[in-house]
């Protein structure tokens, strides 16, 4: 998954879904390139469960837990924001 965010506010402005992104997708952008940054999360194969390689385990290369959850539940995106200092996604702070 590629996440685009506002460099100033950290608000997520869009995504490109998928586990592996090729050159064509890396040339894509959401919004203005000067105003928006991006976080690229490629997935990697971590384990092959059997000899004929039909069962494999994949996981995100970064922020494993959040990106795994995000793949299962895309509406989670509404609850996330980007920490622009660390350049990583975090859960949006609860407003009292």
């Amino acid at each position: 998954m590629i996440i685009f965010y506002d460099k100033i506010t950290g608000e997520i402005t869009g995504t490109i879904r998928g586990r592996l992104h090729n050159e064509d997708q890396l040339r894509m952008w959401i919004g203005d390139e000067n105003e928006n940054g991006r976080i690229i999360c490629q997935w990697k194969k971590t384990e092959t469960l059997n000899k004929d390689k039909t069962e494999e385990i994949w996981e995100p290369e970064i922020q494993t837990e959040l990106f795994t959850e995000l793949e299962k539940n895309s509406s989670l995106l509404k609850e996330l924001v980007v920490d622009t200092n660390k350049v990583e996604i975090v859960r949006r702070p609860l407003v009292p």
Partner: protein
Amino acid sequence: MTQKIVLTKSGFNAVTETDARNKIFDSSYETLKYFSSGEVTVARSGASASGTFTHNLGYIPFFIVYVDYSADDADFVQCPFYFADFTGYVFIAAWADSTKLYFEVEASVAPPSTLTYHFEYKIFRNDTGL
């Protein structure tokens, strides 16, 4: 002889069947070639707002865009979407050129507070030739 892939329904011969209704797949026919999908959010504080997705394909691709018109749940409707009543209107649309997809919201009045629109796009490799 042209090479092709044909899968027929049970009981039909893939080598001789000519009726497409009896086939599951036939590579003689053009198909949509899925390329990419994702989400774009557009925040509207005035009467209109827009967002872009740069695809850089060099041609106008086949695409589909949905918008979540519910504030609470995920209720998606295909763009363009138009709603009007005695209080005003809102028009939500998406279109493309050879480099970008454009997402636009236009309403009769500015909202009391910023509204966020969630667009879902699906883009295919197919060149529309437009």
